Every structure is written in C-alpha cells, then in structure tokens.
C-alpha cells in the first residue's frame, strides 16, 4: 500500500481507538447504555477516523502551504501597514469561518449570535495583527502575554460571575481545526525567510496571542449584556432503536455540517485566490495540490464533525449525568483523568501542532514528547474540572494560580517552549472538547445538581490552561538537558591556530563543455 496513505490511516486509527475503547469499557462496567446509543457512538468513532485522516492530509496540502505563503509574502513585502491590515483581515475571516465558534455562539445565552461572532472575530483579528507587530518590533512573547493576561483578569472583575467560565472557554474554542493550521503555518512563514536568531522561536505564539482576543471580547460583552439563564446548548438527543435510525441520525446532520464547513472554506478560498492573483506564489503543481487539499479538508471536517456531534454528544452527556447521580460519583475524577489522557490524540489540530514543533526543532522536540505533555495536561484539566463540578469550587481558584504560574514560568523557560506551550492551550481545546467533554461536564453537572454556567463551562478553559504549565515544564527539563550536553563536550576547545586550514588534493580531469 502507498506509504503516506498507510501512515495517515494508522495515525488516525491510533488517535481515536483508545478513547473509543475506554468509553466502551466504561459503558459496560459503569454506565449501561442503550445499544442504539452505543451503535451511534461506534459509527461516530468510525467517521472520526476517516475524518481525521482526510483532515490532517488536507491541512498538510492546503491550509499549511497557504498560511505559510501568506506569512512569507507579508514579510517579503516589508510594508508595515499592509502586514497589519492583512493579518487583521485574515484573523477576522478565519474566525468567522471557524465551525467551533458557531457552536460556542449557540451555547452563550443572551448575546445575539452575530454580535458575538463579529466581536470575537475582531478580537482575533486585532490580536493576529498584534502578533505580527510583536515579531517585527521584537517584543518578547512573555511580556505581551503578561500584559494581556493582566488586562484579562482585570476586566474579569467587572464581568458577572456567570460569564467568566464561558469567556475563558471561548478563548480555547475559537482556535479550532480551521484556525490552528492556518495560524501555525503563518507563524512558520514569518520565520521561514528570516536569518536572525529568534526566527525559530517566533514561529510559535500566534495562536497563543489570538486566544486572548476572544476571552477579552466575551468578557467585555458580558459586562454589557446580562445573562438571563443557562442555555444548555444540547439539543434534544436523538434516540436510535434500529440500525436505520442510526444512519438516519447521521444523514440528517450531515448537510448541516457540510454547509458550515463549505462556508468556512469558501471564505478562505476566496481570500487565497485574491492572494494568488496578486502574488502569483504557487505554480501549477502546487495549485492542483492545494485544490485537492481543500477537498480533503472539506471531506475530513464534515465527516469528523458529523461523527463527533451525532455519535459523541449523547454518550458524553449520558455518561456524566448517570455517573454524577449515582453513588459512585467520585469515580468521575479518575475516569475524567483517564479520558483526558487519551482524548487529546483525537483532537485534529493537535497533530498539526506536534508536526510543526518537530519540524521547527528539526526533530529535537519529537512528536512523542509533545503528545505525552499534552496528554498529561488534558488529564489534569479533566481531573480539576470534575473536582470543580462535584464541589462547586469557583473557577478563579484555579485560573488565577494557573495563569500566574504559567506566566512566571515564561521567564525561565526557553522562548520557543513558551510559544509552543501557549499555542497548545488553544490547540488542545478543539471539537473533541466541545462535543464530548463539554456534554460530559454538563451531564455531570446536571447529575450532581450544580450550576451549569459556573461549573460545567470552564472545562475548555481548564483544557486550554493546563498545557501551558505542562509544556513549559517540559521546556525546563529540555533546557537542563541542553546544559548537560554542553558540559560533556570538552573537545570543543581546540588548540592551535583556529584559522588554520588543511587541504586535501583533488584531481580534475579537465572541464568539457556540452553544447
């Protein structure tokens, strides 16, 4: 079989399989479920595998080259106003196009969807432009993050309590499967044609800063709008008795996601065509590849979103509510940790990030290490969320120390890891989180009788926060490793004239000219 194809299939399979097995096992041991729901779940998992495979292939072929190309051309143009304007525009377009944001808008009560989406879009646009300015003027990323998170926490004082978890959630949610590959590769593009020392570490940090935009936007909106009451965001769960019901359930939802994803990609394609007409960056072969890549992305995302929305939401919700209502409710904490550890691999954007990290570090930070770090982060996030749901602890008890600690870490960790860590916060919290983990948390919250707005929401915020700490801690270890390496290299000190050259003889037969 074709090697690349085989790799993609194996990757997609191994990403989705563990979480599927865990849920299956738990449904047998802990929460018996109707076989229809389980059949839906299994079908969903299958769609997830197919979707994930197509999506990662498509992202490689279309989204990444375009994002990178835009980054490169903007740098080449050396026009500040243009760079800022285009970045803002891109931020706005891709955010409005992001399917994840639509989901969030549906869930946020009392703010009209359009106002929310445009505000968040403008937030992301501004911060994307700011990321570019940051690189050009060489403002250190930790400083920027410190300033903006201080602003975020200050604004949060004036925002109703109910709104805070949701605001932090939106930061993680908006950076989904469309935005992430695009922004990551744009960062790579900005770094690709630079010769200065900081170019490598500057490849990261775009997603990091852009996650701040939505948080601020929703916090500010929250100060103006008064949330009336919780809007569960979970539509009536479709039941399924026969295998035909299962297929019908998926078929009825498919067009909805097809429309959403088409809209999202159309916005990007239009932008790309204008870009290509102006810069003529891509040659014939590449254009064909990009076109096919867009098609893969479309197929992949539609299949993925349908699978996860139809197959995973009911199971997640049923899981949470039944467990929390039972006498075994504390088992939610270890179960959450287990699910968290394995679910991160099923987030499509995570693969894009891990690959990017490996590329930029030329293999020095392998994908395995990133996977492990993100898994630990996710496990911690779910553990904390489950404890919060069961005890009703205020989210700020975790957010303030968490962010304070990760911001302090930025001053000790190699810069490149700060960028990667803050990027991965946004990357980890994608469609898997909003369609499986959020319903799980909501179900648990309902079962335990907690406040949905303050307890269940906030799970994305946790998922977006813990990797900041874990990845930076890995960075700290990495730094020590580098130091140890430097110490055992005494041979580096040469004796004698450092400019001396030894020549080897080499004989030419004499040159010929071929006309």
């Amino acid at each position, binding site marked *: 079989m074709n090697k690349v194809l085989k790799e993609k299939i194996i990757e997609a399979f191994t990403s989705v399989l563990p979480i599927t097995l865990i849920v299956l096992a738990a449904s047998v041991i802990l929460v018996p479920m109707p076989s229809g729901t389980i059949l839906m779940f299994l079908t969903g998992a299958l769609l997830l595998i197919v979707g994930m495979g197509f999506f990662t292939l498509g992202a490689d072929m279309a989204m990444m080259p375009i994002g990178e190309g835009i980054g490169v051309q903007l740098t080449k143009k050396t026009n500040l106003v243009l760079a800022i304007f285009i970045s803002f525009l891109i931020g706005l377009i891709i955010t409005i196009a992001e399917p994840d944001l639509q989901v969030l808008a549906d869930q946020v009560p009392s703010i009209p969807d359009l106002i929310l989406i445009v505000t968040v879009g403008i937030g992301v646009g501004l911060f994307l432009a700011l990321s570019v300015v940051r690189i050009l*003027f060489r403002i250190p990323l930790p400083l920027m993050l410190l300033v903006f998170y201080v602003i975020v926490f200050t604004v949060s004082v004036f925002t109703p309590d109910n709104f805070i978890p949701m605001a932090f959630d939106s930061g993680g949610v908006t950076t989904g499967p469309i935005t992430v590959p695009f922004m990551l590769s744009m960062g790579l593009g900005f770094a690709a044609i630079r010769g200065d020392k900081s170019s490598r570490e500057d490849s990261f940090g775009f997603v990091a800063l852009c996650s701040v935009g939505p948080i601020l936007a929703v916090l500010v909106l929250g100060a103006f709008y008064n949330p009336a009451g919780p809007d569960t965001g979970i539509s009536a769960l479709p039941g399924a008795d026969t295998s035909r019901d299962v297929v019908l359930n998926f078929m009825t939802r498919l067009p909805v996601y097809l429309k959403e994803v088409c809209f999202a990609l159309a916005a990007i394609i239009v932008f790309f065509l204008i870009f290509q007409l102006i810069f003529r960056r891509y040659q014939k072969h590449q254009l064909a590849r990009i076109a096919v890549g867009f098609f893969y992305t479309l197929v992949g995302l539609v299949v993925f979103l349908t699978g996860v929305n139809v197959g995973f939401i009911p199971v997640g919700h049923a899981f949470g509510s039944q467990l929390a209502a039972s006498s075994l409710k504390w088992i939610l904490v270890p179960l959450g940790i287990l699910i968290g550890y394995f679910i991160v691999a099923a987030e499509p954007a995570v693969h894009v990030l891990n690959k990017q990290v490996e590329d930029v570090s030329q293999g020095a930070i392998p994908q395995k290490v990133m996977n492990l770090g993100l898994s630990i982060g996710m496990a911690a996030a779910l553990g904390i969320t489950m404890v919060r749901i069961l005890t009703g602890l205020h989210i700020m008890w975790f957010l303030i120390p968490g962010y304070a600690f990760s911001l302090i870490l930025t001053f000790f960790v190699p810069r490149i890891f700060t960028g990667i860590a803050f990027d991965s916060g946004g990357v980890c919290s994608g469609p898997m989180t909003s369609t499986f983990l959020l319903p799980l948390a909501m179900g648990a919250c309902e079962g335990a009788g907690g406040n949905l707005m303050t307890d269940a929401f906030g799970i994305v915020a946790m998922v977006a926060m813990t990797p900041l700490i874990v990845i930076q801690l890995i960075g700290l270890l990495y730094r020590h490793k580098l130091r140890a390496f430097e110490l055992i290299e005494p041979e580096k000190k040469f004796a004698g004239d450092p400019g001396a050259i*030894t020549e080897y003889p080499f004989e030419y037969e004499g040159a010929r000219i071929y006309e």
Partner: protein
Amino acid sequence: MSEKKSAVHGPVLKCLVFIIDWEKTKTLSDVLARINVRFHYIAKGKGTASSEMLNVLGIGSSEKAVFFCLEQDIMATLLLKEASAALGFYRPRAGIAFAIPLTGINTPVLQIFKKSVMREVKHFSDKEQLFMTSELKYELIIAVVNQGYSDELMAAAREAGAGGGTVINVRGLMHEGPVKFFGISVQEEREAIMILTSKEKKIPIMRAIGRDFGVNSKAAGIVYAVPVDSVLGVKL
C-alpha cells in the same frame, strides 16, 4: 596521488550523507552515537513523488531526514556498514547513503580525529568490502531554485532519467545582504533539490534542469554536480 596524500597531516575526512525516512531518524542517530560520530547534522527534507498523479493527490512524497556527517575515510566504511545493517539499505526504498570527498577542512577539527584514530581503527579491518561502489561512478546533482519550483523541476529531471530526488528548503543570502524589515532580516526562500545519479545520466538531467529552470527562468535556478563515492541503496 600517493605522494600528495602523504603531504596531508592527519586523517582524510569525508562528508557522509544519509537520506532516509524521517521516522528512521532515531535509528540512525543511535548508530551514529554508538560509533561515536562527532559531527553530524540533520536537516528535514521532502522526498519527491514518483508520479504526478500521486503528487497532486498528496500521497506521493514523504518526509526525509538528511544527515550530514563528518568522518575519516577509513571509518566511513564501518559507518556505512553499521547504518546499512540498522536501516536495511539492501531493501528497495530504504534510503540512500553516499560520501562526498572533501578538499579542505579547518585544522583544529582534524585534531579531534587525530586523537581517536588509533583507538577506533583497531576493531575494523579495511579488507572488508561492502556492496557499494568506491570509485567515482556516481554524481550528486544539486539544483537550487526559487521556492515552489521543485515539483516541476523533478518532473523534468525524471524525464531525463533521474530516479528520485530530495528537496530541502533553504534560504538564499543575496549579494547585497538581507533586506531589513524593522527588527527582522528578510531572506529569499529557495529550494535545494539533490539528485543522485550515474555519470552517464548526469549531463542529460543537468541539461533538462538548466534549460527550463536556469538562471534566466522564473525559477532562477543554478545547477551543479559533485562527485560522490561509497554509494549505498541505489539501483541506477
């Protein structure tokens, strides 16, 4: 030749190049660590698709690791042998390896090899011959073109008889130096395509590249060839 060689102080060095699947990076790194190769650098490259169709479908090319190692010529055979055992160069598509003879080296680096040469040569008898060619039968064609032209270039090279190639993204430093854009310096993106080929096919391939992707074309390419020996893993 022999008396000229004796005029050189210290061991003769070669630049060994391995081009293997990116996933095998660890395997080769381990081999290099075991044999104690002091200077090796890894670049990430991209293999080229064997057909245009596969390329457009996005499943044609895979990621490659390009290793550049500096080693004494007497150690090269041992290194190639060990690497071959670990990576299976005798199998098709397992990767390739070759050595580029050096014509100069800064002397301080040589001192390191001097120190270790006695110790390591002991466990290796130079009579052992590998299934590789030691004479200069092969050449490495290197073409450096503007970003985005590697696909077309490979298609042309393939028509002229090239078996395959590896692309590495590089940055070009212009004669005038980099352009400054506030805090950052901007350089040209270029792609370097490495094609290993036999002596007979060298000229047709280089001509094909030069004709369509030469200095006067949009690709603004330069193309040159260097002699290589100790070639492994190629059937040409």
